[in-house]
């Protein structure tokens, strides 16, 4: 496993795109977060922590690209056959990829969230004064947002392993993330509305960002993140099975 980790780390580290994508996660997350905070400067939009972390909805797309390319790139170049020849236990390869992608996203996520919250505190002058990581719910929102990005990365990795084609995998991942809120908006049955929000990886997962008005949440913060965790675990599991059963 240690060698497999080293191999995956070397591959991802030496790809020209990786550093750019990680920088993109931080930049785009912060950019949208600051824009949302500026738009909410006078009212705070109800929940300063959630407002300052709006950018996660943007940054997750870049995380998805990074994770998908870690697998899809190998399939498109045929590199995957070399990888499996070197490390014949395919589940080990997937696990190593998950660890390396997860670790990279974790680092980028911490940077993105820290800068977003600090920028939010600065921009949301009036309401933002309350925005401090020493505050329990805000800390939970920040940590949860980092974990959210990591889980989106793992979900993308799993989907890419199943789908193998990078473009299709990105389509599936972004569809899973973005379509639930849109469908929920046109469903008028309150039970179905709540059900859709609870199983939606994005809506449920981002419940972890809420710091005010917790009663209105469709699902409790950590349970919501757990929903995304289940999606990620399911995708990795199916990916692992597909790797074992299919030819490379």
């Amino acid at each position: 496993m240690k060698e497999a980790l080293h191999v995956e780390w070397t591959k991802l580290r030496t790809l020209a795109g990786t550093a750019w994508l990680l920088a993109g996660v931080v930049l785009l997350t912060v950019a949208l977060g600051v824009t949302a905070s500026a738009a909410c400067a006078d009212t705070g939009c109800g929940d300063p922590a959630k407002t300052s972390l709006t950018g996660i909805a943007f940054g997750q797309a870049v995380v998805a690209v990074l994770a998908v390319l870690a697998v899809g790139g190998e399939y498109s170049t045929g590199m995957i056959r070399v990888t499996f020849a070197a490390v014949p236990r395919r589940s080990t390869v997937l696990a190593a990829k998950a660890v390396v992608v997860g670790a990279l996203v974790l680092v980028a996520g911490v940077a993105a969230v820290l800068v977003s919250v600090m920028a939010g505190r600065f921009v949301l002058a009036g309401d933002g004064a309350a925005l401090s990581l020493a505050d329990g719910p805000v800390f939970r929102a920040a940590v949860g947002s980092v974990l959210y990005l990591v889980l989106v990365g793992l979900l993308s990795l799993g989907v890419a392993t199943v789908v193998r084609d990078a473009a299709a995998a990105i389509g599936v991942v972004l569809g899973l993330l973005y379509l639930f809120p849109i469908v929920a908006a046109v469903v008028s049955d309150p039970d179905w509305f709540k059900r859709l929000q609870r199983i939606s990886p994005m809506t449920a997962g981002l419940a972890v960002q809420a710091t005010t008005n917790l009663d209105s949440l469709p699902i409790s913060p950590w349970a919501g993140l757990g929903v995304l965790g289940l999606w990620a675990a399911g995708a990795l599991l199916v990916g692992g099975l597909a790797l074992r059963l299919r030819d490379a």
Partner: protein
Amino acid sequence: MSGRDGFGQALHAEWTKLRTVRGWVFGLVAAALVIVLMGLFAAAASNFSCSGPDGKPCAGSTPPLGPGGEPVVDNFSFAHQAFTGDGSITARVTSLTAVSAADDQAPVEATQPWTKGGVIIKESTTPGSPYAALTLTGGHGVRLQHNFTGDIAGTLRATPSWLRLTRSGDTITGHESADGATWHLVGTVTLPGLPSTVRAGLFAASPHHEVVTESFASTSGMSYPTRATAEFDRIDLEGTWPDREWTGDDVGDLGGPVDRPEVGFEETGDGVTVRGSGNIAPVVAGRGGLGRTVEGRLVGAFAGLIAVIVVAATFMTSEYRRGLIRTSLAASPRRGRVLAAKSVVIAAVTFVTALAAALITTPLVRAVEVGKGFFEYPVPTATEVRVIVGTAALLAVAAVLSLAVGTVLRRSAGAVTVVIVAIVLPYILAIASVLPTGPSDWLLRVTPAAAFAVQQSLPEYAQVTADYSPADGYFPLSPLGGFAVLCGYTAVALGVAFSVLRRRDA
């Protein structure tokens, strides 16, 4: 070989590539399927529950239709008499106020901007029948309104205001006066086919007081009924008024479970006081609305869009990945021609696929909704055609955008992400995020997501206060204006793609 033949050959080559690659055909079929299935799912997962606290049927679930065919609210307190032939009605409004009367609470002053009190000539007391009204309002001064959608502003803004409606055949003229001596023309409206004998008199109405609360990933509205009190005196009736006394009616009161404040009229010395609740206005759709719209049936277009973007991006990037681009460019050395041929093929195929899917989805979903008892907002055929064809065109243009971005980036994953994020993410932020209406509107003006305006089927009404936000299905740009934004982005992307294709080695 003429240039035209060359382009024809390029088109044929690209069409052959597209239809023989299993993944692309699969992607396009999937796009059509998700458009149909998501529409059906959204209808199936919507329920019509509208029962009052005492189990009475829900009033207003099928609103009356106005003379123009649009659904309307026609609910007001009316002190009226029969009025035959030509003549006029004049009255002075001395006071117009409204109170909010939520359950078990002491009434509080809550005059709404469109609280109304004035004179009205109406074909009958049947809700939805043609009318012309000259009214003082809570916040918009004197207005001459007719047949629910017509609205002409007067100049007076305060009480007392003298109001006069004069009938001459089908024509009704409104005059206003501050002192009863000098009269100012507000406007003239025509009510075609108005019968000789109509109902005319004094009315009062006040719409609900809306309170919008933002909650996690959604907004919900609460509304409280309000009751207007309009005091009139110096009433002067010219022409033939055979009744010689006022009759009171709460027009449009369907006896539903809505807790309506006490309404009616009383004669006070030389005047009349009318108390009324409700509104005379077109219905505005929205999240809280009971009706379903055309665009709601096409919600699957978002999923179809994602599938189409994936197909279109790989339609170009796979040429680079497999090195086929060198063969393509060798066969057709004018590089712009290859890109143009690809654009035409992907746009045409996407348009036909999406149009077929939308044409199948709309009647299917409509049947499910009607079966569940939903009210379907009637829209002119031209509007319905614009929504359906516009949705297909939106997907086609998005496909070309994806193709162009794919040409520039030469990486499918990057191209797919850029295009999906550019079109879908702003829409989500606008309808389901913490952002207030202002920034949401802005997002739907400057990003490619503006194109979804082409799906908006219901108009905004200046004379109805409502939350015309993106989440309610109201876009800041006109349908064609919004669509033009996406076309603009696509044109720029195509321009960049042409230029890099020409300059770069393949």
